[in-house]
Protein backbone atom coordinates (compact mmCIF):
# COMPACT_ATOMS: atom_id res chain seq x y z
CA UNK A 1 0.00 0.00 0.00
CA UNK A 2 2.75 2.44 0.99
CA UNK A 3 4.68 1.45 -2.11
CA UNK A 4 1.57 2.07 -4.14
CA UNK A 5 1.29 5.59 -2.73
CA UNK A 6 4.98 6.30 -3.16
CA UNK A 7 5.19 5.02 -6.71
CA UNK A 8 1.84 5.97 -8.16
CA UNK A 9 -0.29 8.36 -6.09
CA UNK A 10 2.40 10.91 -5.18
CA UNK A 11 3.83 11.16 -8.72
CA UNK A 12 0.23 11.38 -9.95
CA UNK A 13 -0.55 14.31 -7.69
CA UNK A 14 2.68 16.06 -8.71
CA UNK A 15 1.90 15.64 -12.40
CA UNK A 16 -1.72 16.56 -11.70
CA UNK A 17 -0.67 19.81 -9.99
CA UNK A 18 1.08 20.92 -13.16
CA UNK A 19 -1.89 19.91 -15.30
CA UNK A 20 -4.21 21.77 -12.94
CA UNK A 21 -2.27 25.02 -13.19
CA UNK A 22 -2.37 24.91 -16.97
CA UNK A 23 -5.97 23.72 -17.15
CA UNK A 24 -7.32 26.58 -15.02
CA UNK A 25 -6.04 29.09 -17.57
CA UNK A 26 -7.33 27.16 -20.58
CA UNK A 27 -10.71 26.75 -18.93
CA UNK A 28 -11.09 30.41 -17.95
CA UNK A 29 -9.86 31.72 -21.30
CA UNK A 30 -12.32 29.42 -23.04
CA UNK A 31 -15.29 30.59 -21.02
CA UNK A 32 -14.43 34.31 -20.96
CA UNK A 33 -12.87 34.84 -24.38
CA UNK A 34 -14.75 31.98 -26.06
CA UNK A 35 -11.84 30.24 -27.73
CA UNK A 36 -9.53 27.31 -27.14
CA UNK A 37 -6.13 28.86 -26.46
CA UNK A 38 -3.65 26.73 -28.38
CA UNK A 39 -0.67 28.85 -27.34
CA UNK A 40 -1.20 28.06 -23.66
CA UNK A 41 1.41 25.32 -23.58
CA UNK A 42 3.97 27.58 -25.21
CA UNK A 43 3.14 30.30 -22.69
CA UNK A 44 4.20 27.73 -20.08
CA UNK A 45 7.43 27.12 -21.96
CA UNK A 46 8.04 30.86 -22.18
CA UNK A 47 7.63 31.25 -18.42
CA UNK A 48 10.03 28.38 -17.82
CA UNK A 49 12.70 29.89 -20.08
CA UNK A 50 12.35 33.41 -18.66
CA UNK A 51 12.99 31.86 -15.23
CA UNK A 52 15.98 30.07 -16.79
CA UNK A 53 17.36 33.42 -17.97
CA UNK A 54 16.99 34.82 -14.46
CA UNK A 55 18.63 31.73 -12.92
CA UNK A 56 21.57 32.03 -15.32
CA UNK A 57 21.92 35.81 -14.93
CA UNK A 58 21.69 36.09 -11.15
CA UNK A 59 22.48 32.58 -10.00
CA UNK A 60 19.21 32.37 -8.07
CA UNK A 61 17.42 29.08 -7.45
CA UNK A 62 14.49 28.58 -9.87
CA UNK A 63 11.81 29.18 -7.22
CA UNK A 64 13.34 32.60 -6.44
CA UNK A 65 13.34 33.39 -10.16
CA UNK A 66 9.63 32.65 -10.30
CA UNK A 67 8.19 36.12 -9.52
CA UNK A 68 10.20 37.80 -12.29
CA UNK A 69 9.28 35.06 -14.74
CA UNK A 70 5.59 35.38 -13.86
CA UNK A 71 5.68 39.13 -14.45
CA UNK A 72 7.48 38.63 -17.77
CA UNK A 73 4.97 36.03 -18.94
CA UNK A 74 2.03 38.22 -17.94
CA UNK A 75 3.49 41.10 -19.94
CA UNK A 76 4.00 38.82 -22.92
CA UNK A 77 0.45 37.47 -22.72
CA UNK A 78 -1.07 40.97 -22.53
CA UNK A 79 0.95 42.02 -25.56
CA UNK A 80 -0.09 38.88 -27.43
CA UNK A 81 -3.73 39.53 -26.61
CA UNK A 82 -3.47 43.14 -27.72
CA UNK A 83 -1.83 42.43 -31.07
CA UNK A 84 -2.84 38.88 -31.98
CA UNK A 85 -6.27 38.24 -30.41
CA UNK A 86 -7.98 41.58 -29.79
CA UNK A 87 -8.32 42.40 -33.51
CA UNK A 88 -10.45 39.22 -33.78
CA UNK A 89 -12.66 39.86 -30.73
CA UNK A 90 -15.78 40.00 -32.92
CA UNK A 91 -14.72 37.25 -35.33
CA UNK A 92 -15.82 33.66 -35.15
CA UNK A 93 -13.98 31.67 -32.44
CA UNK A 94 -12.18 29.48 -34.97
CA UNK A 95 -10.36 32.56 -36.30
CA UNK A 96 -8.88 33.26 -32.87
CA UNK A 97 -8.05 29.59 -32.39
CA UNK A 98 -5.99 29.70 -35.59
CA UNK A 99 -4.37 32.96 -34.44
CA UNK A 100 -3.40 31.28 -31.18
CA UNK A 101 -1.95 28.38 -33.15
CA UNK A 102 0.24 30.89 -34.97
CA UNK A 103 1.23 32.52 -31.70
CA UNK A 104 2.20 29.09 -30.35
CA UNK A 105 4.56 28.53 -33.29
CA UNK A 106 6.03 32.01 -32.90
CA UNK A 107 6.71 31.66 -29.19
CA UNK A 108 8.31 28.27 -29.69
CA UNK A 109 10.45 29.45 -32.59
CA UNK A 110 11.59 32.49 -30.59
CA UNK A 111 12.55 30.25 -27.67
CA UNK A 112 14.55 27.96 -29.96
CA UNK A 113 16.34 30.96 -31.48
CA UNK A 114 17.22 32.49 -28.13
CA UNK A 115 17.95 29.46 -25.97
CA UNK A 116 18.64 26.72 -28.52
CA UNK A 117 17.00 23.35 -28.95
CA UNK A 118 19.03 21.33 -26.45
CA UNK A 119 17.29 20.29 -23.23
CA UNK A 120 18.65 22.28 -20.28
CA UNK A 121 18.37 21.73 -16.54
CA UNK A 122 17.81 24.73 -14.26
CA UNK A 123 20.70 23.65 -12.10
CA UNK A 124 23.49 21.31 -13.21
CA UNK A 125 24.26 18.34 -11.02
CA UNK A 126 22.61 15.25 -9.68
CA UNK A 127 19.18 15.08 -8.11
CA UNK A 128 19.17 15.53 -4.36
CA UNK A 129 18.26 12.32 -2.53
CA UNK A 130 14.68 11.50 -1.62
CA UNK A 131 13.35 13.24 1.44
CA UNK A 132 12.07 10.72 3.87
CA UNK A 133 8.80 11.10 5.71
CA UNK A 134 8.73 7.53 6.90
CA UNK A 135 7.15 5.56 5.44
CA UNK A 136 6.63 7.95 2.53
CA UNK A 137 9.42 8.91 0.17
CA UNK A 138 9.04 12.25 -1.53
CA UNK A 139 11.58 14.20 -3.54
CA UNK A 140 12.22 17.75 -2.45
CA UNK A 141 11.30 19.13 -5.87
CA UNK A 142 7.95 17.39 -5.67
CA UNK A 143 7.24 19.11 -2.36
CA UNK A 144 8.09 22.42 -4.05
CA UNK A 145 5.70 21.65 -6.91
CA UNK A 146 2.78 20.79 -4.66
CA UNK A 147 3.38 23.71 -2.28
CA UNK A 148 3.62 26.26 -5.11
CA UNK A 149 0.42 24.84 -6.61
CA UNK A 150 -1.46 25.03 -3.33
CA UNK A 151 -0.32 28.65 -2.78
CA UNK A 152 -1.37 29.72 -6.28
CA UNK A 153 -4.71 27.92 -6.17
CA UNK A 154 -5.47 29.50 -2.78
CA UNK A 155 -4.62 32.93 -4.16
CA UNK A 156 -6.88 32.26 -7.14
CA UNK A 157 -9.70 31.19 -4.86
CA UNK A 158 -9.42 34.43 -2.87
CA UNK A 159 -9.30 36.47 -6.06
CA UNK A 160 -12.43 34.81 -7.46
CA UNK A 161 -14.50 34.97 -4.29
CA UNK A 162 -13.33 38.09 -2.47
CA UNK A 163 -12.49 40.70 -5.10
CA UNK A 164 -14.73 42.66 -7.41
CA UNK A 165 -12.70 41.82 -10.50
CA UNK A 166 -12.64 38.13 -9.55
CA UNK A 167 -16.42 38.04 -9.19
CA UNK A 168 -16.69 39.85 -12.52
CA UNK A 169 -14.51 37.14 -14.08
CA UNK A 170 -16.92 34.50 -12.79
CA UNK A 171 -19.87 36.58 -14.00
CA UNK A 172 -18.43 36.99 -17.47
CA UNK A 173 -17.55 33.32 -17.70
CA UNK A 174 -21.14 32.59 -16.68
CA UNK A 175 -22.69 34.84 -19.36
CA UNK A 176 -20.58 37.33 -21.32
CA UNK A 177 -23.57 39.07 -22.95
CA UNK A 178 -25.24 39.64 -19.62
CA UNK A 179 -21.94 40.92 -18.20
CA UNK A 180 -21.84 43.48 -20.99
CA UNK A 181 -25.39 44.76 -20.45
CA UNK A 182 -24.74 44.88 -16.71
CA UNK A 183 -22.01 47.42 -17.37
CA UNK A 184 -19.09 45.17 -16.41
CA UNK A 185 -15.93 46.44 -18.12
CA UNK A 186 -15.33 43.39 -20.25
CA UNK A 187 -11.91 44.43 -21.56
CA UNK A 188 -10.71 44.82 -17.99
CA UNK A 189 -12.01 41.38 -17.14
CA UNK A 190 -10.26 39.99 -20.21
CA UNK A 191 -6.97 41.60 -19.17
CA UNK A 192 -7.25 40.03 -15.72
CA UNK A 193 -8.03 36.68 -17.29
CA UNK A 194 -4.70 36.88 -19.08
CA UNK A 195 -2.95 37.86 -15.87
CA UNK A 196 -4.36 34.82 -14.10
CA UNK A 197 -3.85 32.49 -17.06
CA UNK A 198 -0.27 33.62 -17.65
CA UNK A 199 0.76 33.48 -13.98
CA UNK A 200 -0.53 29.93 -13.64
CA UNK A 201 0.88 28.86 -17.01
CA UNK A 202 4.33 30.28 -16.27
CA UNK A 203 4.32 28.63 -12.84
CA UNK A 204 3.35 25.31 -14.43
CA UNK A 205 6.19 25.67 -16.94
CA UNK A 206 8.76 26.49 -14.27
CA UNK A 207 7.58 23.58 -12.12
CA UNK A 208 7.84 21.23 -15.10
CA UNK A 209 11.37 22.49 -15.65
CA UNK A 210 12.21 21.89 -11.99
CA UNK A 211 10.75 18.37 -12.22
CA UNK A 212 12.51 17.38 -15.44
CA UNK A 213 14.31 19.53 -18.02
CA UNK A 214 13.66 22.64 -20.05
CA UNK A 215 12.79 21.79 -23.63
CA UNK A 216 11.30 24.03 -26.33
CA UNK A 217 8.48 21.50 -26.76
CA UNK A 218 7.76 21.00 -23.08
CA UNK A 219 4.60 23.14 -23.03
CA UNK A 220 3.28 22.02 -26.38
CA UNK A 221 3.58 18.41 -25.22
CA UNK A 222 1.49 19.27 -22.17
CA UNK A 223 -1.30 20.90 -24.17
CA UNK A 224 -3.32 17.75 -24.80
CA UNK A 225 -3.49 16.59 -21.16
CA UNK A 226 -4.24 20.17 -20.12
CA UNK A 227 -7.19 20.43 -22.47
CA UNK A 228 -8.30 16.99 -21.33
CA UNK A 229 -8.11 18.12 -17.69
CA UNK A 230 -10.05 21.33 -18.42
CA UNK A 231 -12.81 19.40 -20.20
CA UNK A 232 -12.81 16.64 -17.60
CA UNK A 233 -13.43 19.24 -14.89
CA UNK A 234 -15.93 21.28 -16.91
CA UNK A 235 -14.94 24.25 -19.06
CA UNK A 236 -15.31 27.55 -17.28
CA UNK A 237 -15.08 25.95 -13.86
CA UNK A 238 -11.70 26.81 -12.30
CA UNK A 239 -12.25 24.34 -9.46
CA UNK A 240 -13.23 21.75 -12.02
CA UNK A 241 -9.94 22.34 -13.82
CA UNK A 242 -8.03 21.69 -10.59
CA UNK A 243 -10.01 18.52 -9.98
CA UNK A 244 -9.62 17.46 -13.62
CA UNK A 245 -5.86 18.03 -13.50
CA UNK A 246 -5.37 16.01 -10.32
CA UNK A 247 -7.65 13.18 -11.45
CA UNK A 248 -5.94 12.98 -14.82
CA UNK A 249 -2.45 13.04 -13.27
CA UNK A 250 -3.28 10.22 -10.89
CA UNK A 251 -5.05 8.13 -13.56
CA UNK A 252 -2.08 8.50 -15.89
CA UNK A 253 0.31 7.24 -13.23
CA UNK A 254 -2.02 4.47 -12.11
CA UNK A 255 -2.36 3.23 -15.67
CA UNK A 256 1.07 1.64 -15.43
CA UNK A 257 0.29 -0.17 -12.16
CA UNK A 258 0.97 -3.92 -12.54
CA UNK A 259 -2.63 -4.85 -12.01
CA UNK A 260 -2.83 -8.29 -13.61
CA UNK A 261 0.77 -9.46 -13.71
CA UNK A 262 4.24 -8.15 -12.99
CA UNK A 263 4.06 -6.08 -16.14
CA UNK A 264 2.63 -2.55 -16.08
CA UNK A 265 -1.11 -2.67 -16.83
CA UNK A 266 -0.58 -0.20 -19.65
CA UNK A 267 2.93 0.55 -20.83
CA UNK A 268 4.12 3.94 -19.49
CA UNK A 269 4.77 4.91 -23.11
CA UNK A 270 1.01 5.23 -23.55
CA UNK A 271 0.50 7.63 -20.64
CA UNK A 272 -0.35 10.49 -22.96
CA UNK A 273 -2.90 8.23 -24.68
CA UNK A 274 -4.79 8.01 -21.40
CA UNK A 275 -5.44 11.76 -21.54
CA UNK A 276 -6.65 11.38 -25.09
CA UNK A 277 -8.93 8.50 -24.16
CA UNK A 278 -10.42 10.49 -21.27
CA UNK A 279 -10.93 13.46 -23.58
CA UNK A 280 -12.81 11.31 -26.08
CA UNK A 281 -14.90 9.58 -23.43
CA UNK A 282 -15.86 12.86 -21.78
CA UNK A 283 -16.76 14.56 -25.06
CA UNK A 284 -19.04 11.67 -25.98
CA UNK A 285 -20.73 10.95 -22.67
CA UNK A 286 -20.38 13.97 -20.46
CA UNK A 287 -19.28 17.00 -22.48
CA UNK A 288 -20.17 19.38 -19.66
CA UNK A 289 -17.47 17.77 -17.50
CA UNK A 290 -17.51 16.69 -13.87
CA UNK A 291 -18.59 20.11 -12.54
CA UNK A 292 -21.14 20.99 -15.23
CA UNK A 293 -19.17 23.45 -17.29
CA UNK A 294 -19.80 24.70 -20.78
CA UNK A 295 -20.16 22.32 -23.68
CA UNK A 296 -17.35 22.71 -26.20
Amino acid at each position, binding site marked *: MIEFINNYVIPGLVLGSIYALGAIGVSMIYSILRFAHFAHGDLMTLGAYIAFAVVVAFGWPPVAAMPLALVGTVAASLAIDRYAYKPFRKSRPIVVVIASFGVALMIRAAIMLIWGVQPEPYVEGINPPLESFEPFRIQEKHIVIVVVTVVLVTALHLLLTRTKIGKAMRAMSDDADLARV*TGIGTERVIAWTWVVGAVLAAAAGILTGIDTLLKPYMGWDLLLPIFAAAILGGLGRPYGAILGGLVLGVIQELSSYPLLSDEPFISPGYKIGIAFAILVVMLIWRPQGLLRGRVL
Partner: protein
Amino acid sequence: MLSAERLVGGYGGADILKGVSVRLDPGEIVVIVGPNGAGKSTVMKAVFGLVTLREGTVTFDGAEISGLPTEQRVRRGLAYVPQERNVFVTLSVHENLEMGGFVRKTIPQAVFDRIYALFPVLAEKRKQPAGELSGGQRQMLAVGRALMVEPKVLLLDEPTAGLSPRAMDEIFACIKAINAQGVGILMVEQNARQALGLAHRGYVLATGENRYTDTGAALLANREVAESFLGGGH
Protein backbone atom coordinates in the same frame (compact mmCIF):
# COMPACT_ATOMS: atom_id res chain seq x y z
CA MET B 1 -35.96 62.14 -20.35
CA LEU B 2 -35.48 59.34 -22.87
CA SER B 3 -36.39 59.59 -26.48
CA ALA B 4 -35.77 57.38 -29.48
CA GLU B 5 -36.51 59.03 -32.81
CA ARG B 6 -37.27 57.23 -36.08
CA LEU B 7 -35.08 54.20 -35.41
CA VAL B 8 -34.16 52.10 -38.44
CA GLY B 9 -32.01 49.02 -38.06
CA GLY B 10 -31.71 45.42 -36.90
CA TYR B 11 -29.16 42.71 -36.29
CA GLY B 12 -27.23 43.04 -39.55
CA GLY B 13 -29.79 41.41 -41.85
CA ALA B 14 -33.06 42.97 -42.89
CA ASP B 15 -34.25 45.98 -40.88
CA ILE B 16 -36.50 45.04 -38.00
CA LEU B 17 -37.15 48.61 -36.95
CA LYS B 18 -38.57 50.74 -39.75
CA GLY B 19 -38.80 54.17 -38.21
CA VAL B 20 -40.05 53.51 -34.68
CA SER B 21 -40.15 56.39 -32.19
CA VAL B 22 -40.73 56.07 -28.46
CA ARG B 23 -40.47 58.61 -25.66
CA LEU B 24 -40.38 58.39 -21.90
CA ASP B 25 -41.00 61.45 -19.74
CA PRO B 26 -39.60 61.67 -16.19
CA GLY B 27 -41.35 59.38 -13.74
CA GLU B 28 -43.47 57.62 -16.36
CA ILE B 29 -44.26 53.98 -16.93
CA VAL B 30 -44.42 53.44 -20.67
CA VAL B 31 -45.41 50.08 -22.11
CA ILE B 32 -44.70 48.80 -25.61
CA VAL B 33 -47.10 46.15 -26.86
CA GLY B 34 -47.72 44.53 -30.20
CA PRO B 35 -47.74 41.17 -31.99
CA ASN B 36 -44.72 38.90 -32.25
CA GLY B 37 -42.18 40.25 -34.71
CA ALA B 38 -43.31 43.84 -34.23
CA GLY B 39 -39.83 44.76 -33.02
CA LYS B 40 -40.74 45.45 -29.39
CA SER B 41 -37.65 43.88 -27.84
CA THR B 42 -35.52 45.29 -30.63
CA VAL B 43 -36.59 48.83 -29.71
CA MET B 44 -35.45 48.23 -26.14
CA LYS B 45 -32.14 46.83 -27.33
CA ALA B 46 -31.69 49.74 -29.70
CA VAL B 47 -32.24 52.21 -26.87
CA PHE B 48 -29.59 50.36 -24.88
CA GLY B 49 -27.14 50.15 -27.79
CA LEU B 50 -27.36 46.44 -28.59
CA VAL B 51 -28.66 46.90 -32.12
CA THR B 52 -26.94 48.37 -35.16
CA LEU B 53 -28.91 51.47 -36.09
CA ARG B 54 -28.77 52.71 -39.67
CA GLU B 55 -30.87 55.76 -38.94
CA GLY B 56 -32.37 57.52 -35.96
CA THR B 57 -31.13 58.93 -32.69
CA VAL B 58 -31.46 58.05 -29.04
CA THR B 59 -31.26 60.90 -26.54
CA PHE B 60 -31.17 60.48 -22.80
CA ASP B 61 -31.19 63.18 -20.16
CA GLY B 62 -30.61 65.90 -22.75
CA ALA B 63 -27.66 64.29 -24.56
CA GLU B 64 -27.46 62.06 -27.58
CA ILE B 65 -26.31 58.57 -26.59
CA SER B 66 -26.75 56.77 -29.93
CA GLY B 67 -23.05 56.00 -30.35
CA LEU B 68 -22.14 55.21 -26.75
CA PRO B 69 -21.06 51.74 -25.60
CA THR B 70 -23.48 50.06 -23.20
CA GLU B 71 -21.14 50.55 -20.24
CA GLN B 72 -21.39 54.34 -20.72
CA ARG B 73 -25.16 54.15 -20.95
CA VAL B 74 -25.24 52.31 -17.63
CA ARG B 75 -23.02 54.99 -16.08
CA ARG B 76 -25.47 57.66 -17.23
CA GLY B 77 -28.35 55.99 -15.45
CA LEU B 78 -29.91 53.62 -17.93
CA ALA B 79 -30.33 50.01 -16.83
CA TYR B 80 -31.61 47.10 -18.87
CA VAL B 81 -33.10 43.76 -17.87
CA PRO B 82 -33.05 41.24 -20.72
CA GLN B 83 -35.94 38.84 -21.11
CA GLU B 84 -33.99 35.63 -20.69
CA ARG B 85 -30.71 34.63 -19.13
CA ASN B 86 -30.80 37.73 -16.98
CA VAL B 87 -29.03 36.49 -13.84
CA PHE B 88 -25.56 35.02 -13.34
CA VAL B 89 -26.58 31.51 -12.38
CA THR B 90 -23.33 30.43 -10.71
CA LEU B 91 -23.02 33.61 -8.64
CA SER B 92 -24.87 34.01 -5.37
CA VAL B 93 -27.84 36.36 -5.12
CA HIS B 94 -25.70 38.90 -3.30
CA GLU B 95 -22.88 38.64 -5.83
CA ASN B 96 -25.39 39.21 -8.63
CA LEU B 97 -26.37 42.47 -6.97
CA GLU B 98 -22.71 43.42 -6.52
CA MET B 99 -22.15 42.87 -10.23
CA GLY B 100 -25.15 45.09 -10.95
CA GLY B 101 -23.23 47.90 -9.30
CA PHE B 102 -19.96 47.13 -11.12
CA VAL B 103 -19.70 50.61 -12.67
CA ARG B 104 -19.79 52.22 -9.22
CA LYS B 105 -16.55 52.67 -7.27
CA THR B 106 -18.21 51.75 -4.01
CA ILE B 107 -21.77 50.62 -3.41
CA PRO B 108 -23.40 52.15 -0.33
CA GLN B 109 -24.96 49.57 1.98
CA ALA B 110 -28.20 51.56 1.73
CA VAL B 111 -28.56 50.50 -1.91
CA PHE B 112 -28.44 46.81 -0.97
CA ASP B 113 -30.83 47.46 1.92
CA ARG B 114 -33.35 49.16 -0.34
CA ILE B 115 -33.33 46.27 -2.81
CA TYR B 116 -33.59 43.64 -0.10
CA ALA B 117 -36.49 45.64 1.37
CA LEU B 118 -38.19 45.67 -2.02
CA PHE B 119 -37.61 41.92 -2.50
CA PRO B 120 -37.49 40.32 0.97
CA VAL B 121 -37.25 36.84 -0.56
CA LEU B 122 -33.86 37.79 -2.05
CA ALA B 123 -32.57 38.78 1.38
CA GLU B 124 -33.45 35.29 2.64
CA LYS B 125 -31.57 33.66 -0.23
CA ARG B 126 -28.67 36.07 -0.50
CA LYS B 127 -26.02 33.36 -0.26
CA GLN B 128 -27.69 30.90 -2.63
CA PRO B 129 -26.59 30.59 -6.25
CA ALA B 130 -29.02 32.46 -8.50
CA GLY B 131 -29.44 29.27 -10.55
CA GLU B 132 -31.42 27.78 -7.64
CA LEU B 133 -34.09 30.51 -7.66
CA SER B 134 -37.61 30.08 -9.04
CA GLY B 135 -38.64 31.94 -12.19
CA GLY B 136 -40.30 34.79 -10.30
CA GLN B 137 -37.38 35.14 -7.89
CA ARG B 138 -34.94 35.23 -10.78
CA GLN B 139 -36.92 38.01 -12.36
CA MET B 140 -36.84 39.91 -9.07
CA LEU B 141 -33.09 39.43 -8.86
CA ALA B 142 -32.67 40.60 -12.44
CA VAL B 143 -34.62 43.76 -11.65
CA GLY B 144 -32.73 44.21 -8.38
CA ARG B 145 -29.43 43.80 -10.21
CA ALA B 146 -30.42 46.57 -12.62
CA LEU B 147 -31.44 48.83 -9.73
CA MET B 148 -27.94 48.66 -8.22
CA VAL B 149 -26.80 51.62 -10.31
CA GLU B 150 -29.80 53.61 -9.04
CA PRO B 151 -30.88 54.20 -12.62
CA LYS B 152 -33.04 57.07 -13.79
CA VAL B 153 -34.68 54.79 -16.31
CA LEU B 154 -35.19 51.04 -16.20
CA LEU B 155 -35.70 49.09 -19.43
CA LEU B 156 -37.61 45.85 -18.84
CA ASP B 157 -37.97 43.29 -21.63
CA GLU B 158 -41.02 41.12 -20.89
CA PRO B 159 -40.48 40.92 -17.14
CA THR B 160 -43.37 38.50 -16.61
CA ALA B 161 -42.70 36.08 -19.49
CA GLY B 162 -43.20 32.49 -18.40
CA LEU B 163 -44.30 33.32 -14.85
CA SER B 164 -47.31 32.03 -12.95
CA PRO B 165 -50.20 34.50 -12.56
CA ARG B 166 -49.30 35.01 -8.92
CA ALA B 167 -45.64 35.73 -9.64
CA MET B 168 -46.80 38.03 -12.44
CA ASP B 169 -48.89 40.08 -10.01
CA GLU B 170 -45.94 40.32 -7.66
CA ILE B 171 -43.66 41.60 -10.42
CA PHE B 172 -46.21 44.18 -11.56
CA ALA B 173 -46.59 45.35 -7.95
CA CYS B 174 -42.80 45.70 -7.68
CA ILE B 175 -42.64 47.66 -10.92
CA LYS B 176 -45.22 50.06 -9.53
CA ALA B 177 -43.26 50.40 -6.29
CA ILE B 178 -40.01 51.10 -8.15
CA ASN B 179 -41.75 53.71 -10.28
CA ALA B 180 -43.18 55.31 -7.14
CA GLN B 181 -39.58 55.93 -6.07
CA GLY B 182 -39.12 58.07 -9.16
CA VAL B 183 -37.56 55.61 -11.62
CA GLY B 184 -38.88 55.90 -15.16
CA ILE B 185 -39.84 52.53 -16.65
CA LEU B 186 -39.96 51.54 -20.28
CA MET B 187 -41.13 47.99 -20.74
CA VAL B 188 -42.19 45.50 -23.33
CA GLU B 189 -45.01 43.19 -22.25
CA GLN B 190 -46.80 40.18 -23.69
CA ASN B 191 -49.40 40.51 -21.00
CA ALA B 192 -50.69 43.68 -22.60
CA ARG B 193 -53.89 44.33 -20.70
CA GLN B 194 -52.37 44.17 -17.25
CA ALA B 195 -49.34 46.20 -18.34
CA LEU B 196 -51.39 48.92 -20.02
CA GLY B 197 -53.51 49.11 -16.88
CA LEU B 198 -50.34 50.08 -15.05
CA ALA B 199 -48.89 52.36 -17.70
CA HIS B 200 -49.08 56.11 -18.01
CA ARG B 201 -48.67 55.78 -21.75
CA GLY B 202 -48.42 52.98 -24.24
CA TYR B 203 -47.19 52.30 -27.74
CA VAL B 204 -48.64 49.70 -30.05
CA LEU B 205 -46.07 48.58 -32.60
CA ALA B 206 -46.56 46.44 -35.68
CA THR B 207 -43.98 45.36 -38.27
CA GLY B 208 -41.35 47.72 -36.97
CA GLU B 209 -43.51 50.84 -37.03
CA ASN B 210 -45.63 52.83 -34.59
CA ARG B 211 -49.30 51.96 -34.93
CA TYR B 212 -51.04 53.59 -31.94
CA THR B 213 -49.78 55.89 -29.20
CA ASP B 214 -51.95 56.99 -26.31
CA THR B 215 -52.39 56.81 -22.57
CA GLY B 216 -52.63 53.29 -21.17
CA ALA B 217 -56.31 53.72 -20.31
CA ALA B 218 -57.18 55.13 -23.74
CA LEU B 219 -55.43 52.26 -25.53
CA LEU B 220 -57.32 49.76 -23.41
CA ALA B 221 -60.58 51.54 -24.27
CA ASN B 222 -59.77 51.72 -27.99
CA ARG B 223 -61.82 49.03 -29.75
CA GLU B 224 -59.53 48.69 -32.73
CA VAL B 225 -56.51 48.21 -30.51
CA ALA B 226 -58.38 45.75 -28.36
CA GLU B 227 -59.57 43.69 -31.29
CA SER B 228 -56.33 43.62 -33.26
CA PHE B 229 -53.70 43.61 -30.56
CA LEU B 230 -55.08 42.68 -27.17
CA GLY B 231 -56.78 39.44 -28.12
CA GLY B 232 -60.49 40.16 -28.49
CA GLY B 233 -62.75 43.01 -27.34
CA HIS B 234 -64.07 43.78 -23.88
